[in-house]
């Protein structure tokens, strides 16, 4: 298992707190539609992409941080003024990104193992 730390958060405030806590580290973030009581997300693409992302995590470097962020319920996500859209400039879920860089994968790109691997192993 690669030496990365996983942090689970929900909502924008939690996310930004986690980012600050790990200032100075390489931070990857995966944004997904929130899961229900049974652990299933309202976003079908997010459900499909998660195993691909988890597989790709095996390539991540030592000391990296992986933030798994549940963005919220569908109506919140659809609101064009939500914090994720306005402040983080997210356009869709799932989004997988390397925080503080332009390296990101959006929607169907997250389903492609080769692209996910590239994002995690980039230096």
């Amino acid at each position: 298992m690669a030496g990365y730390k996983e942090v689970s958060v929900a909502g924008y405030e939690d996310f930004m707190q986690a980012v600050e806590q790990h200032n100075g580290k390489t931070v990857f973030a995966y944004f997904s539609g929130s899961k229900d009581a049974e652990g299933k997300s309202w976003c079908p693409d997010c459900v499909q992409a998660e195993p691909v992302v988890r597989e790709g995590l095996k390539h991540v470097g030592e000391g990296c941080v992986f933030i798994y962020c549940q963005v919220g319920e569908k109506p919140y996500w659809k609101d064009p003024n939500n914090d994720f859209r306005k402040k983080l400039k997210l356009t869709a879920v799932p989004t997988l990104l390397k925080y503080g860089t332009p390296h990101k994968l959006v929607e169907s790109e997250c389903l492609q193992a080769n692209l996910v691997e590239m994002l995690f192993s980039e230096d």
Partner: protein
Amino acid sequence: MVLDFVAPSPQGTSWGLGGTCVNVGCVPKKLMHQAALLGQALTDSRRFGWEFSQQVKHNWGTLTEAVQTHVGSLNWGCRLSLREKAVAYVNAHGEFVEHHKVKATNGKGQKTCYTAAKFVIATGERPRYLGIQGDKEYCITSDDLFSLPYCPGATLVVGASYVALECAGFLAGLGLEVTVMVRSVLLRGFDQEMAERLGSSLERLGVRFLRKFVPVAVLQLEKGSPGRLKVVARSTEGPETVEGVYNTVLLAIGRDSCTKGIGLEKIGVKINEKNGRIPVNDMEQTTVPYVYAVGDVLEGKPQLTPVAMQAGKLLARRLFGGRLEKCDYVNVPTVVFTPLEYGCCGLSEERAAQEYQRENLEVYHTVFWPLEWTVACRDNNACYAKIICNKLDNERVIGFHILGPNAGEITQGFAAAMKCGLTKRLLDDTVGIHPTCAEVFTTLEITKSSGLDIMQKGC
């Protein structure tokens, strides 16, 4: 496989995947051009009723950060595109060692060899230096300007290429003091009447021109970000010398092809020894049948991003897609993105006269005053449009030129029309869109041969 490696500039600047256009050319240039236009718009806005009391000033750092963020996303986009198509990208300098084999050296000096059946050379160009005292130590080029970590301040631009004029234009538009040192003509190779009108528009913006001078030394008076540099220049017409002090000296005197040091001589790919460019046939093939070339390195072809992209795409289709189409290099439109833009497609008046004889040409022209400039009280004789028609061929439009706002957007459609065989009659039959600048081309009446005055009166 793509072997891409950017050797750092003398000032240490380097960049990611995507070539000159994405990193240190078209893209950052157009964004900075837009920044300058927005400054002008702020000035004009007062006349349209906008009231604001703050002093409007420009922050260079904010601009470069925004530009570099966008460039970074384009670099990433290139990486994604390559990976999606399973193209291996190796960040290393490629060099032929023998037929069908290259040696790739990465930034750490590690070497790996690769073989392939076919090769494409698209190594582009880099800015040329003057070869005078202080040039590499103290001067910057377009390689450095778009990510410069400090505001350039009072700038001397050396050169009269479109790179020189575009940079001079947006720097002046951002409020900086700009001087342009020109050895002989502006925009060599372009229509000279248009070039001179463009030069005048820059002068009206406050750009100072030092015509017929060349720098002979650059000395550092003070270190800093920016520092202070003294430039000594000699007249091309006599012994006169002139000295000036500037914060930044930007060299834009031309670009050299990156075809030396990549082993072309080892496999016999012929290059033009004078300028380093590679002659190819109409299939972009070099003198060695399995080696092709596209882009700025090509001898005798327009050095423009869309030309390179088109040539590359069609080459790939011919090699692997069973298609036959060749790249059409005729009537390629281009635009100089100075604050007042210059768009053209086809021949300059000089070339047209050479190819068809002046008596067989009819040139229609006019000055025009954009409606938006009326209320803003801007010059009513600065914008100019002309078409060059071949009288022996139904007044076929063989040259299209416009100096005016949004020339870039305007020229595209007319380039397509010229591909369809545009004639003066067809232009006259086209109904104009009102009120626009582009519509002037549908109502051109005055010819140069008539000698009639086109200047606008009033205001």
